[in-house]
Protein backbone atom coordinates (compact mmCIF):
# COMPACT_ATOMS: atom_id res chain seq x y z
CA UNK A 1 0.00 0.00 0.00
CA UNK A 2 1.24 3.47 -0.80
CA UNK A 3 1.79 5.83 2.08
CA UNK A 4 -0.82 8.48 2.75
CA UNK A 5 0.05 11.29 0.43
CA UNK A 6 0.25 14.18 2.85
CA UNK A 7 3.83 15.15 2.25
CA UNK A 8 3.37 16.25 -1.32
CA UNK A 9 0.52 18.66 -0.67
CA UNK A 10 2.17 22.01 -0.33
CA UNK A 11 -1.00 23.71 0.82
CA UNK A 12 -1.53 21.56 3.92
CA UNK A 13 0.80 23.34 6.29
CA UNK A 14 -0.42 21.39 9.33
CA UNK A 15 0.37 18.05 7.69
CA UNK A 16 3.84 19.24 6.74
CA UNK A 17 4.50 20.40 10.26
CA UNK A 18 3.35 17.08 11.69
CA UNK A 19 5.76 15.28 9.34
CA UNK A 20 8.50 17.57 10.56
CA UNK A 21 7.68 17.00 14.26
CA UNK A 22 7.50 13.28 13.52
CA UNK A 23 11.07 13.37 12.27
CA UNK A 24 12.13 15.45 15.26
CA UNK A 25 10.58 12.98 17.69
CA UNK A 26 12.01 9.98 15.86
CA UNK A 27 15.49 11.50 15.79
CA UNK A 28 15.16 12.37 19.48
CA UNK A 29 14.11 8.75 20.11
CA UNK A 30 17.16 7.44 18.30
CA UNK A 31 19.38 9.85 20.25
CA UNK A 32 17.83 8.76 23.56
CA UNK A 33 18.36 5.16 22.54
CA UNK A 34 22.01 5.79 21.72
CA UNK A 35 22.55 7.59 25.04
CA UNK A 36 20.88 4.79 27.03
CA UNK A 37 22.88 2.24 25.07
CA UNK A 38 26.15 3.93 25.95
CA UNK A 39 25.09 4.08 29.60
CA UNK A 40 24.11 0.42 29.70
CA UNK A 41 27.25 -0.75 27.91
CA UNK A 42 29.38 1.35 30.25
CA UNK A 43 27.47 0.50 33.45
CA UNK A 44 25.59 -2.75 32.76
CA UNK A 45 23.82 -2.67 36.13
CA UNK A 46 22.59 0.92 35.78
CA UNK A 47 19.22 0.03 34.29
CA UNK A 48 18.83 -3.42 35.79
CA UNK A 49 16.10 -2.28 38.19
CA UNK A 50 13.84 -1.43 35.28
CA UNK A 51 14.39 -4.82 33.70
CA UNK A 52 13.83 -6.67 36.97
CA UNK A 53 10.48 -4.94 37.46
CA UNK A 54 9.45 -5.88 33.93
CA UNK A 55 10.50 -9.49 34.36
CA UNK A 56 8.74 -9.70 37.71
CA UNK A 57 5.56 -8.45 36.08
CA UNK A 58 5.63 -11.06 33.36
CA UNK A 59 7.11 -13.99 35.28
CA UNK A 60 3.74 -15.70 35.93
CA UNK A 61 3.25 -16.08 32.17
CA UNK A 62 6.61 -17.76 31.82
CA UNK A 63 6.03 -20.02 34.79
CA UNK A 64 2.86 -21.34 33.22
CA UNK A 65 4.76 -22.26 30.08
CA UNK A 66 7.81 -23.68 31.81
CA UNK A 67 5.96 -26.78 32.96
CA UNK A 68 5.35 -27.78 29.38
CA UNK A 69 9.03 -27.77 28.58
CA UNK A 70 10.13 -30.59 30.86
CA UNK A 71 12.29 -33.09 29.05
CA UNK A 72 11.99 -31.39 25.71
CA UNK A 73 15.02 -29.89 24.03
CA UNK A 74 15.04 -26.85 21.79
CA UNK A 75 12.58 -26.64 18.93
CA UNK A 76 14.82 -28.17 16.27
CA UNK A 77 15.95 -31.04 18.45
CA UNK A 78 12.34 -31.77 19.29
CA UNK A 79 11.50 -32.11 15.61
CA UNK A 80 14.71 -33.91 14.72
CA UNK A 81 14.08 -36.42 17.49
CA UNK A 82 11.39 -38.12 15.41
CA UNK A 83 13.86 -39.13 12.73
CA UNK A 84 16.16 -42.12 13.19
CA UNK A 85 14.18 -43.23 16.23
CA UNK A 86 15.02 -46.90 15.72
CA UNK A 87 18.77 -46.58 15.37
CA UNK A 88 18.81 -44.12 18.23
CA UNK A 89 17.00 -46.61 20.40
CA UNK A 90 19.64 -49.23 19.70
CA UNK A 91 22.40 -46.73 20.44
CA UNK A 92 20.74 -45.74 23.68
CA UNK A 93 20.39 -49.34 24.83
CA UNK A 94 24.07 -49.85 24.18
CA UNK A 95 24.82 -46.70 26.15
CA UNK A 96 22.63 -47.80 29.04
CA UNK A 97 24.55 -51.07 29.27
CA UNK A 98 27.84 -49.19 29.42
CA UNK A 99 26.40 -46.70 31.87
CA UNK A 100 25.34 -49.46 34.26
CA UNK A 101 28.88 -50.71 34.41
CA UNK A 102 30.19 -47.20 34.97
CA UNK A 103 27.59 -46.66 37.66
CA UNK A 104 28.80 -49.70 39.53
CA UNK A 105 32.36 -48.45 39.22
CA UNK A 106 31.33 -45.05 40.47
CA UNK A 107 29.52 -46.55 43.43
CA UNK A 108 32.64 -48.47 44.31
CA UNK A 109 34.72 -45.34 44.04
CA UNK A 110 32.26 -43.43 46.19
CA UNK A 111 32.48 -46.05 48.92
CA UNK A 112 36.23 -45.93 48.81
CA UNK A 113 36.07 -42.16 48.87
CA UNK A 114 33.80 -42.14 51.91
CA UNK A 115 36.08 -44.56 53.69
CA UNK A 116 39.16 -42.46 52.96
CA UNK A 117 37.41 -39.26 53.98
CA UNK A 118 36.26 -40.86 57.20
CA UNK A 119 39.81 -42.00 57.77
CA UNK A 120 41.25 -38.50 57.64
CA UNK A 121 38.29 -36.91 59.39
CA UNK A 122 37.26 -34.71 56.50
CA UNK A 123 33.66 -33.71 56.44
CA UNK A 124 32.40 -32.12 53.26
CA UNK A 125 30.14 -29.18 53.99
CA UNK A 126 27.49 -29.52 51.31
CA UNK A 127 26.08 -26.04 50.82
CA UNK A 128 22.32 -26.00 51.04
CA UNK A 129 20.71 -24.34 48.04
CA UNK A 130 19.27 -20.89 48.64
CA UNK A 131 16.26 -21.53 46.48
CA UNK A 132 14.88 -24.00 43.96
CA UNK A 133 13.26 -22.54 40.86
CA UNK A 134 12.43 -23.08 37.25
CA UNK A 135 14.05 -21.60 34.18
CA UNK A 136 11.10 -19.84 32.60
CA UNK A 137 12.60 -18.57 29.38
CA UNK A 138 15.68 -17.32 27.63
CA UNK A 139 16.74 -14.59 25.26
CA UNK A 140 16.43 -16.77 22.21
CA UNK A 141 17.01 -14.08 19.59
CA UNK A 142 19.71 -11.90 21.13
CA UNK A 143 23.42 -12.56 20.82
CA UNK A 144 23.63 -12.56 24.61
CA UNK A 145 22.57 -15.71 26.44
CA UNK A 146 20.40 -14.92 29.45
CA UNK A 147 17.69 -17.04 31.01
CA UNK A 148 14.91 -16.01 33.34
CA UNK A 149 14.52 -17.77 36.66
CA UNK A 150 11.28 -18.04 38.61
CA UNK A 151 12.77 -17.12 42.00
CA UNK A 152 14.13 -13.78 43.12
CA UNK A 153 15.25 -11.65 46.04
CA UNK A 154 12.23 -12.59 48.13
CA UNK A 155 13.56 -16.18 48.06
CA UNK A 156 17.07 -15.07 48.93
CA UNK A 157 18.52 -15.06 45.44
CA UNK A 158 21.24 -12.44 44.98
CA UNK A 159 23.49 -11.55 42.04
CA UNK A 160 26.61 -13.72 41.53
CA UNK A 161 25.03 -16.87 42.96
CA UNK A 162 25.67 -20.04 40.93
CA UNK A 163 22.71 -21.80 39.31
CA UNK A 164 23.00 -25.57 39.22
CA UNK A 165 20.86 -28.29 37.73
CA UNK A 166 21.10 -32.00 38.57
CA UNK A 167 23.08 -32.43 35.35
CA UNK A 168 25.64 -29.75 36.09
CA UNK A 169 26.32 -26.05 36.15
CA UNK A 170 23.85 -23.82 34.29
CA UNK A 171 25.19 -20.33 34.93
CA UNK A 172 25.07 -17.60 37.51
CA UNK A 173 22.60 -14.96 38.59
CA UNK A 174 23.25 -11.59 37.00
CA UNK A 175 20.31 -9.53 38.23
CA UNK A 176 17.70 -10.40 40.82
CA UNK A 177 14.22 -8.92 41.00
CA UNK A 178 11.68 -9.55 43.72
CA UNK A 179 10.17 -12.70 42.25
CA UNK A 180 12.39 -13.42 39.28
CA UNK A 181 16.03 -13.31 38.32
CA UNK A 182 18.13 -13.10 35.21
CA UNK A 183 20.73 -15.82 34.79
CA UNK A 184 23.81 -15.56 32.60
CA UNK A 185 24.13 -18.97 30.96
CA UNK A 186 27.53 -20.63 30.57
CA UNK A 187 27.33 -20.16 26.81
CA UNK A 188 27.18 -16.36 27.04
CA UNK A 189 30.34 -14.98 25.55
CA UNK A 190 31.03 -12.94 28.69
CA UNK A 191 30.78 -16.00 30.92
CA UNK A 192 34.02 -17.55 32.06
CA UNK A 193 34.22 -20.39 34.56
CA UNK A 194 37.40 -21.78 36.11
CA UNK A 195 37.36 -25.53 35.52
CA UNK A 196 39.62 -28.55 35.88
CA UNK A 197 39.59 -31.98 34.27
CA UNK A 198 37.65 -34.40 36.42
CA UNK A 199 40.36 -37.06 36.38
CA UNK A 200 43.38 -34.92 37.18
CA UNK A 201 44.29 -31.31 37.78
CA UNK A 202 44.51 -29.87 34.29
CA UNK A 203 43.12 -26.41 34.97
CA UNK A 204 41.44 -24.26 32.37
CA UNK A 205 38.79 -21.64 31.76
CA UNK A 206 35.50 -22.52 30.11
CA UNK A 207 34.33 -19.60 28.05
CA UNK A 208 30.98 -19.37 26.30
CA UNK A 209 30.75 -19.24 22.55
CA UNK A 210 28.05 -17.88 20.30
CA UNK A 211 27.00 -21.24 18.87
CA UNK A 212 26.13 -22.76 22.22
CA UNK A 213 29.43 -24.55 22.89
CA UNK A 214 32.13 -23.80 25.41
CA UNK A 215 35.74 -23.05 24.61
CA UNK A 216 38.15 -24.68 27.02
CA UNK A 217 41.24 -22.50 27.38
CA UNK A 218 44.11 -24.23 29.13
CA UNK A 219 46.02 -22.14 31.63
CA UNK A 220 49.30 -24.02 31.26
CA UNK A 221 50.10 -23.94 27.58
CA UNK A 222 52.32 -26.60 26.14
CA UNK A 223 51.44 -30.04 24.91
CA UNK A 224 47.68 -30.23 24.81
CA UNK A 225 46.71 -33.15 27.06
CA UNK A 226 43.01 -33.10 26.25
CA UNK A 227 41.15 -35.91 24.56
CA UNK A 228 37.67 -36.17 23.21
CA UNK A 229 35.28 -37.18 25.98
CA UNK A 230 37.19 -35.53 28.83
CA UNK A 231 34.80 -34.15 31.43
CA UNK A 232 35.46 -30.79 33.03
CA UNK A 233 34.20 -29.82 36.47
CA UNK A 234 34.38 -26.51 38.31
CA UNK A 235 37.65 -26.02 40.14
CA UNK A 236 36.36 -23.63 42.80
CA UNK A 237 38.93 -21.00 41.88
CA UNK A 238 37.62 -17.46 42.10
CA UNK A 239 35.24 -18.38 44.88
CA UNK A 240 31.94 -18.04 43.00
CA UNK A 241 31.27 -21.60 41.92
CA UNK A 242 31.62 -24.48 44.37
CA UNK A 243 34.13 -27.11 43.17
CA UNK A 244 33.36 -30.42 41.47
CA UNK A 245 30.22 -29.48 39.59
CA UNK A 246 30.07 -30.94 36.12
CA UNK A 247 30.41 -28.30 33.41
CA UNK A 248 31.25 -29.67 29.98
CA UNK A 249 32.52 -32.61 27.96
CA UNK A 250 35.20 -32.16 25.30
CA UNK A 251 33.92 -32.45 21.76
CA UNK A 252 36.84 -31.47 19.54
CA UNK A 253 40.41 -30.75 20.55
CA UNK A 254 41.97 -27.55 19.24
CA UNK A 255 45.50 -26.15 19.34
CA UNK A 256 45.21 -24.30 22.64
CA UNK A 257 42.45 -26.25 24.31
CA UNK A 258 39.20 -27.72 23.17
CA UNK A 259 35.63 -27.04 22.19
CA UNK A 260 33.27 -28.63 24.68
CA UNK A 261 29.57 -29.21 24.95
CA UNK A 262 27.66 -28.12 28.04
CA UNK A 263 26.63 -31.07 30.17
CA UNK A 264 23.47 -29.55 31.57
CA UNK A 265 21.48 -28.51 28.55
CA UNK A 266 19.40 -25.68 30.03
CA UNK A 267 16.64 -26.49 27.54
CA UNK A 268 16.14 -29.90 29.12
CA UNK A 269 16.36 -28.90 32.77
CA UNK A 270 13.22 -28.63 34.81
CA UNK A 271 14.19 -27.40 38.24
CA UNK A 272 17.44 -25.67 39.06
CA UNK A 273 18.97 -24.88 42.42
CA UNK A 274 20.49 -21.52 43.30
CA UNK A 275 23.47 -22.09 45.58
CA UNK A 276 25.08 -19.47 47.76
CA UNK A 277 28.33 -17.97 46.54
CA UNK A 278 30.93 -20.52 47.57
CA UNK A 279 33.56 -18.30 49.19
CA UNK A 280 32.16 -14.75 49.40
CA UNK A 281 35.32 -13.44 51.05
CA UNK A 282 37.42 -14.62 48.07
CA UNK A 283 35.07 -12.92 45.62
CA UNK A 284 35.25 -9.69 47.63
CA UNK A 285 39.03 -9.85 47.65
CA UNK A 286 39.17 -10.31 43.87
CA UNK A 287 36.76 -7.41 43.45
CA UNK A 288 38.91 -5.15 45.59
CA UNK A 289 42.01 -6.06 43.63
CA UNK A 290 40.46 -5.77 40.19
CA UNK A 291 38.14 -2.86 40.86
CA UNK A 292 34.41 -2.98 40.28
CA UNK A 293 34.37 -4.86 37.00
CA UNK A 294 31.09 -5.60 35.33
CA UNK A 295 30.84 -9.25 34.26
CA UNK A 296 33.69 -10.97 35.93
CA UNK A 297 33.44 -14.70 36.60
Amino acid sequence: MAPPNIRSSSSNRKAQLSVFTGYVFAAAGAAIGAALLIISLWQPQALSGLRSVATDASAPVGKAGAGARVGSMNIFQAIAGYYRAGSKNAELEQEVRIARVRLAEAAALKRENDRLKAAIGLREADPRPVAIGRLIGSTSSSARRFAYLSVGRSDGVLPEMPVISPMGLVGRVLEAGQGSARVMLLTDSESMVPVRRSTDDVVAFAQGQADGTLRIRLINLGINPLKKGDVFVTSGAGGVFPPNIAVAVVDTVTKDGAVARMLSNPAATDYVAVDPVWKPEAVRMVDVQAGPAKDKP
Partner: protein
Amino acid sequence: MIEQINPRARRDAFGSKINRDHSPLLAFGVPWASILLASLTPLLPVIAPAPVLPPFAYLLLLAWRLMRPGLLPLWSGLPLGAFDDLYSGQPFGSGILLFSLTMMGIELLDMRFPWRSFWQDWIIATGLMAAYLVLAAILSGARLDRMELVSLAPQLLLAIVAYPVIARIVSLLDRLRLLRVRRLG
Protein backbone atom coordinates in the same frame (compact mmCIF):
# COMPACT_ATOMS: atom_id res chain seq x y z
CA MET B 1 -43.23 -4.11 -5.52
CA ILE B 2 -39.83 -3.60 -4.00
CA GLU B 3 -37.30 -6.17 -5.00
CA GLN B 4 -35.55 -7.77 -2.10
CA ILE B 5 -31.93 -6.80 -2.35
CA ASN B 6 -29.09 -9.18 -1.76
CA PRO B 7 -28.86 -9.55 2.04
CA ARG B 8 -25.09 -9.46 1.83
CA ALA B 9 -25.03 -6.16 0.00
CA ARG B 10 -24.86 -4.26 3.26
CA ARG B 11 -22.00 -6.33 4.63
CA ASP B 12 -18.38 -6.65 3.66
CA ALA B 13 -15.36 -8.46 5.06
CA PHE B 14 -15.35 -6.16 8.07
CA GLY B 15 -18.97 -6.66 9.10
CA SER B 16 -22.21 -4.81 8.66
CA LYS B 17 -21.99 -1.44 6.99
CA ILE B 18 -25.16 -0.18 8.63
CA ASN B 19 -25.13 1.13 12.15
CA ARG B 20 -21.60 -0.11 12.78
CA ASP B 21 -18.23 1.58 12.63
CA HIS B 22 -14.57 0.77 13.28
CA SER B 23 -13.44 0.94 16.87
CA PRO B 24 -10.57 3.41 17.27
CA LEU B 25 -9.14 1.30 20.07
CA LEU B 26 -8.95 -1.74 17.82
CA ALA B 27 -7.91 0.18 14.72
CA PHE B 28 -4.94 1.85 16.38
CA GLY B 29 -4.29 -0.57 19.24
CA VAL B 30 -3.85 -3.87 17.40
CA PRO B 31 -0.49 -3.04 15.77
CA TRP B 32 0.95 -1.81 19.07
CA ALA B 33 -0.44 -4.70 21.05
CA SER B 34 0.82 -7.30 18.59
CA ILE B 35 4.35 -5.87 18.54
CA LEU B 36 4.45 -5.59 22.35
CA LEU B 37 3.24 -9.17 22.65
CA ALA B 38 5.94 -10.32 20.24
CA SER B 39 8.52 -8.64 22.48
CA LEU B 40 7.62 -11.20 25.13
CA THR B 41 8.93 -14.16 23.10
CA PRO B 42 11.92 -14.58 25.48
CA LEU B 43 9.38 -15.79 28.02
CA LEU B 44 8.37 -18.66 25.76
CA PRO B 45 9.45 -21.98 27.23
CA VAL B 46 12.29 -22.32 24.71
CA ILE B 47 15.68 -22.19 26.38
CA ALA B 48 18.11 -21.74 23.57
CA PRO B 49 21.83 -22.40 24.07
CA ALA B 50 22.49 -20.32 20.94
CA PRO B 51 20.49 -17.53 19.29
CA VAL B 52 18.04 -19.26 16.97
CA LEU B 53 14.69 -17.52 16.97
CA PRO B 54 14.25 -14.47 14.76
CA PRO B 55 13.51 -11.18 16.54
CA PHE B 56 9.73 -11.43 16.31
CA ALA B 57 8.97 -7.94 17.60
CA TYR B 58 11.21 -6.41 14.95
CA LEU B 59 9.69 -8.61 12.23
CA LEU B 60 6.19 -7.52 13.24
CA LEU B 61 7.26 -3.88 13.31
CA LEU B 62 8.67 -4.24 9.79
CA ALA B 63 5.59 -6.02 8.51
CA TRP B 64 3.17 -3.47 9.97
CA ARG B 65 5.26 -0.55 8.76
CA LEU B 66 5.74 -1.92 5.25
CA MET B 67 2.14 -3.08 4.78
CA ARG B 68 0.32 -0.21 6.47
CA PRO B 69 2.38 2.96 6.15
CA GLY B 70 1.19 5.83 8.27
CA LEU B 71 -0.37 3.60 10.89
CA LEU B 72 2.61 3.50 13.24
CA PRO B 73 3.89 7.03 13.87
CA LEU B 74 7.48 7.86 13.10
CA TRP B 75 8.39 8.05 16.79
CA SER B 76 6.94 4.64 17.65
CA GLY B 77 10.44 3.13 17.64
CA LEU B 78 11.11 4.73 21.02
CA PRO B 79 8.37 3.08 23.12
CA LEU B 80 8.35 -0.20 21.18
CA GLY B 81 12.13 -0.50 21.30
CA ALA B 82 12.21 0.33 25.01
CA PHE B 83 9.72 -2.42 25.78
CA ASP B 84 11.63 -4.88 23.61
CA ASP B 85 14.86 -4.03 25.45
CA LEU B 86 13.29 -5.00 28.76
CA TYR B 87 13.06 -8.63 27.68
CA SER B 88 15.35 -9.20 24.71
CA GLY B 89 18.60 -9.43 26.68
CA GLN B 90 20.18 -6.65 24.66
CA PRO B 91 21.63 -3.74 26.65
CA PHE B 92 18.91 -1.18 27.30
CA GLY B 93 18.83 1.34 24.47
CA SER B 94 19.86 -0.86 21.56
CA GLY B 95 16.25 -1.65 20.66
CA ILE B 96 15.25 2.01 20.97
CA LEU B 97 18.08 3.05 18.68
CA LEU B 98 17.60 0.32 16.07
CA PHE B 99 13.79 0.52 16.01
CA SER B 100 13.91 4.33 15.66
CA LEU B 101 16.48 4.17 12.88
CA THR B 102 14.37 1.55 11.10
CA MET B 103 11.25 3.74 11.25
CA MET B 104 13.15 6.68 9.82
CA GLY B 105 14.82 4.53 7.17
CA ILE B 106 11.54 3.13 5.91
CA GLU B 107 10.03 6.61 5.91
CA LEU B 108 12.79 7.80 3.59
CA LEU B 109 12.33 4.67 1.48
CA ASP B 110 8.59 5.35 1.23
CA MET B 111 9.32 8.77 -0.25
CA ARG B 112 11.38 7.26 -3.04
CA PHE B 113 9.38 4.08 -3.71
CA PRO B 114 5.78 4.71 -2.70
CA TRP B 115 4.34 1.73 -4.62
CA ARG B 116 5.85 -1.64 -3.91
CA SER B 117 4.90 -5.27 -4.42
CA PHE B 118 5.21 -7.91 -1.74
CA TRP B 119 8.45 -9.20 -3.24
CA GLN B 120 10.02 -5.78 -2.92
CA ASP B 121 8.78 -5.54 0.65
CA TRP B 122 10.36 -8.89 1.36
CA ILE B 123 13.70 -7.79 -0.12
CA ILE B 124 13.59 -4.58 1.93
CA ALA B 125 12.74 -6.55 5.05
CA THR B 126 15.61 -8.98 4.36
CA GLY B 127 18.09 -6.14 4.12
CA LEU B 128 16.79 -4.49 7.26
CA MET B 129 16.75 -7.76 9.21
CA ALA B 130 20.33 -8.52 8.23
CA ALA B 131 21.39 -5.04 9.30
CA TYR B 132 19.40 -5.36 12.54
CA LEU B 133 20.88 -8.74 13.49
CA VAL B 134 24.46 -7.67 12.78
CA LEU B 135 24.08 -4.34 14.57
CA ALA B 136 22.28 -5.96 17.49
CA ALA B 137 25.11 -8.46 17.82
CA ILE B 138 27.67 -5.66 17.75
CA LEU B 139 25.72 -3.57 20.27
CA SER B 140 24.96 -6.52 22.53
CA GLY B 141 28.30 -6.20 24.29
CA ALA B 142 29.14 -9.80 23.47
CA ARG B 143 32.65 -10.73 22.44
CA LEU B 144 32.59 -10.63 18.66
CA ASP B 145 34.53 -13.10 16.60
CA ARG B 146 34.05 -14.99 13.37
CA MET B 147 31.98 -17.67 15.05
CA GLU B 148 29.58 -15.08 16.44
CA LEU B 149 28.90 -13.73 12.97
CA VAL B 150 28.62 -17.23 11.50
CA SER B 151 26.07 -18.14 14.15
CA LEU B 152 23.90 -15.25 12.98
CA ALA B 153 23.40 -16.90 9.59
CA PRO B 154 20.82 -19.52 10.62
CA GLN B 155 18.96 -16.89 12.59
CA LEU B 156 18.89 -14.58 9.58
CA LEU B 157 17.73 -17.39 7.29
CA LEU B 158 14.96 -18.23 9.70
CA ALA B 159 13.97 -14.57 9.88
CA ILE B 160 13.87 -14.30 6.08
CA VAL B 161 11.70 -17.40 5.82
CA ALA B 162 9.50 -16.19 8.65
CA TYR B 163 8.77 -12.81 7.07
CA PRO B 164 6.00 -14.00 4.67
CA VAL B 165 4.33 -15.87 7.52
CA ILE B 166 4.56 -12.80 9.74
CA ALA B 167 3.22 -10.65 6.90
CA ARG B 168 0.27 -13.03 6.57
CA ILE B 169 -0.35 -12.85 10.31
CA VAL B 170 -0.21 -9.08 10.10
CA SER B 171 -2.77 -9.07 7.29
CA LEU B 172 -5.04 -11.27 9.42
CA LEU B 173 -4.59 -8.87 12.33
CA ASP B 174 -5.26 -6.02 9.94
CA ARG B 175 -8.62 -7.54 9.11
CA LEU B 176 -9.32 -7.88 12.82
CA ARG B 177 -8.24 -4.29 13.30
CA LEU B 178 -10.79 -2.95 10.84
CA LEU B 179 -13.77 -4.99 12.05
CA ARG B 180 -16.81 -2.78 12.52
CA VAL B 181 -17.60 -3.49 16.11
CA ARG B 182 -18.64 -0.08 17.35
CA ARG B 183 -22.40 0.41 17.44
CA LEU B 184 -23.52 3.81 16.20
CA GLY B 185 -26.46 5.56 17.76
